[in-house]
């Protein structure tokens, strides 16, 4: 067990190091300057531009810049070039905004795909299976922003209620319920849009997994025992079909810091995706690199947790 931990940590640290180097190189070797340094602005003399480059350490050799950046990152001193705010603080603020969307999106994805996928598998090639298959692929195939606009226009013009932002602008009420439900409403469309792709993919995956398990001998054994329909499919088959999904819990971890730029831009959601996108546009390297680093850590931690979870749920795997 300790050996497994140790090996994982060492291996993942090495991976993380390479991730940090690669992302640093991608960003710094690409042409372009931080948006603060705008060479076509008549107000900026070369002197000012030079001083800005110095301030951002851009005048130093790459490896020094790398060391300086990660020194700052680990001491928590990294600041955004755009507004000089601490990067970690900015990320935390966005994280809190993105969190409800992430939670609800995940909840929708998981609660919808399982019943759908299981039922489709049990009634393979039946009308339910065929229609959900078709619907899933419609959802996967439609360009997200096209779907989003169609939905927004329908809701806004027919229901006459606001959908953008995290809550209705300027809403004030003494009732906590009103404020809460207002927030919930503003979550509905973006989380549905965020979840559709996930539901489609996951329900297909659940169906495939279930189909495989339903064909197994032990399911027949369970039926031979005289177990009910539920006992056979929802106890014996599902338990086995669930195993690979347990690992997906770990892989969801990086989703905490992700977020769809497109959905967030359309819905004016002040989330992580938009911040990352704006950072890329403004070439706000500290923000991009920090986000990337955290994502890397979360991905690696996620795979680690997946491995552990798998060991917990599958009795066949032991260290």
């Amino acid at each position, binding site marked *: 067990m300790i050996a497994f931990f140790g090996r994982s940590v060492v291996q993942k640290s090495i991976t993380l190091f390479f991730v940090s180097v690669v992302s640093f190189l991608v960003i710094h070797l690409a*042409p372009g300057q931080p948006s603060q340094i705008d060479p076509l602005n*008549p107000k900026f003399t070369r002197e000012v531009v030079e001083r800005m480059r110095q301030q951002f350490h851009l005048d130093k050799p790459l490896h020094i810049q790398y060391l300086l950046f990660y020194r700052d990152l680990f001491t928590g001193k990294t600041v955004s070039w755009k507004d000089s705010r601490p990067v970690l603080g900015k990320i935390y603020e966005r994280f809190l905004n993105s969190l409800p969307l992430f939670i609800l999106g995940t909840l929708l994805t998981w609660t919808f795909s399982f019943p759908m996928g299981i039922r489709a598998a049990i009634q393979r090639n039946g009308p339910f299976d065929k229609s959900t298959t078709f619907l899933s692929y419609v959802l996967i195939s439609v360009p997200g922003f096209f779907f989003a606009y169609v939905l927004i*226009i329908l809701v806004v013009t027919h229901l*006459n209620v606001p959908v953008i932002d995290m809550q*209705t602008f*300027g809403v004030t009420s003494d009732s906590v319920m009103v404020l809460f439900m*207002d927030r919930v409403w503003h979550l509905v469309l973006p989380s549905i849009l965020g979840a559709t792709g996930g539901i489609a993919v996951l329900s297909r995956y659940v169906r495939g997994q279930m189909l495989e398990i339903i064909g197994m001998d032990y399911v027949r054994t369970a039926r031979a025992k005289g177990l009910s329909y539920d006992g056979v499919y929802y106890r014996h088959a599902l338990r086995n079909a669930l195993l690979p999904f347990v690992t997906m819990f770990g892989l969801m971890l990086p989703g905490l810091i992700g977020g769809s730029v497109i959905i967030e831009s*359309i819905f004016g959601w002040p989330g992580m995706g938009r911040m990352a996108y704006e950072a890329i546009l403004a070439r706000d390297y500290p923000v991009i690199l920090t986000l990337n680093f955290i994502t890397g850590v979360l991905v690696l931690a996620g795979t680690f947790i997946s491995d552990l979870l798998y060991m917990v749920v599958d009795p066949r795997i032991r260290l």
Partner: protein
Amino acid sequence: MNIRRVLIFAPTLISLVLLSSFFWVPSYDAQTRGNPGRLRQFITAAGGDANLLNPVLAADSSSGQINGLIFEGLLDYDENLNFRGRVAESWRIYEQAYFHLNDKAATARWGRVDGTTLVAKLSESLRQEGAAWDHVKDIALLPPESSTQTVTIGAPSAQKQVTLRIQAPARIRLTLDRVDQLLFDHLAVLLGPEYFSSFDPAPYVTPDAPLSSDSHLELARQVLPATVHNPVIEFHLRPNVRFHDGHALTAADVLFTYNTIMNPRNISPRIPDFEPVQSVAAIDPLTVRIVYKRLYSPALGTWAMGILPAHLLDDAHLQTEATAKGLKPGEFTLRKSDFNRHPVGSGPFVFEEWQSDRYLRLRRFEDYWEGAPNYHQYAMRIIPDPLTQEMEFYAGTVDDYNVLPHQVARLSRDERFHPFSGTALGYSYIGYNLRRPPFDDPRVRRALGMAIDTNQIIKYVLYGQGERITGPFPKQTDYYNHDVKPLPYDPQGALKLLAEAGWQPGPDGVLQKNGRRLAFTLITNNGNPERKAILAVAQDAWKQIGVEVNTDLLEWSVFVEKRVNQLDFDALILGWSMGFDPDLYQIWHSSQSGPFQLNFVGFKNAEADDLILKIRQEYDHRQQVAYCHRLHEIIAEAQPYTFLYVKRWTALLDKRIVRQINLPDGRVEIKPITPTKTGNYTYYFNQWIKLSHSPEATP
């Protein structure tokens, strides 16, 4: 436990909760009509968030918009583009001019004279000459001075410091009550044409290291010029201006703001504006005197920049903040201060709340010196998507947004809205690289311009929201020369001009000259739909007259760094955004045509160079206008750019939003909102208010 039931129950429950939330949301009607407070609230929508609420550090438009409401400068432009005092009640511009006694040259009228005699003779003859010298109020002889100065010389790679001992000769100071850039030219009539130019400063300057005689002379000329203009601006501040925290705004705050800009650690983007300043001094709490190193006519306009509160941002405060944050004071600058997110200014609105990427909220400043604005609250909502912006506007939850031309065309059919438009600042053009053939021939450039139907572009790309432009000055200012006629759309004429220049149709339909085909690449940056459209239109138009054009859309930074800055392009589509100031030095002066400089088309014209310098040194408006008109003609003649259009900005407002003027006698006057000449419909924003009914509707 029945897993199947749980699996079906969970999504049902979630769906029910989500859908039931619909019944709790205030509808658009409830937000607009059902909410009386909404009338005292102005909500604008912006695509991007502000960065820094600090007028000295911010450079983006969203920050600028908010900073303009929270902070206030010493002055601004009024509706006729004249300067209007804000924090400053009045100001005075005068000049002190100096020249060194040249003991090696004889004066034209009086021969070789000493300083005292020269002063006396000068005063006497100026008095005799009369009106032409009225503006000279005082002439004085200053004794010789000695000083030391350290300068850095050499190429950036091999810099070295040299300390100079300067033993300057006696100087004569002339005090003028207005700025006269030609003062020394006129004096040269009295003192002889050689008097100033023959002044040799080298003997008065001793470097501490050996220098070649050339560089010695050059250095000496730098530190000891023969003649110096020192324009002076003296501001008198309003006595009753207060910051939002109640602290009075004084000359010390102005001085502090200047020092903050010039502090290199703050990396203020405004440094270049104030680089010509020699000194700023607070004479008394309400008087500031600014002395300039040289003639710099845009100087006055730079003081429209917002004034920071010194009592909140001085070194002691910054140090306290740094310690509170656990940072070393050496690492901490104004850029990192929380002030930039919780600003305190002296403008008509007080900062209230800022939620990143969501909204910024301000409330009115009750003690504003000009009286509090009518709106109680100002909010800027950040809505990145233009389509949802439009929907919010249409629903009435946003009062103002950056409306696109085609949206204006549609929405102005709705009688709830009132469309505005006016000439914007900034123009679009096609620039040619004059260093490369065939663009070195003005006839070719003119012909290319004539082949493009600019009116069509304006009509269809801009939906008519644009005006033709013929030169580099803002069209709504006096500097613009309306006598210059735009190029006609005349493909046949263009062909004729090209034929004159030697270009004949080749076998493949492309024009040829000496075996060289008329083919080039037109580039612009991506992300700008109008430039993209112009790219397509120009390519098509030029194809019609037999010019083969390849097009390329480049990402902004690549476009700038690899192409524009390296002067590596044939022709490009770009735009300049301008101020009201007529200074064209960086964009048109021939000295600015190297790599990384802004005269990237390589325009060179001796007369234009001279005019550009004169314009930036001329403090007299009429004279400046005359220079500008001539410069405009020269540039239009040379056609280094095909000047396309200046856009008309467009805006839509609810008709219920009006100007409500509270007259001194207590009466209230209601006026519709009209754009001012400056291209600014929000000029009277402090008087705006939203009525519950459109004024036309009430009898």
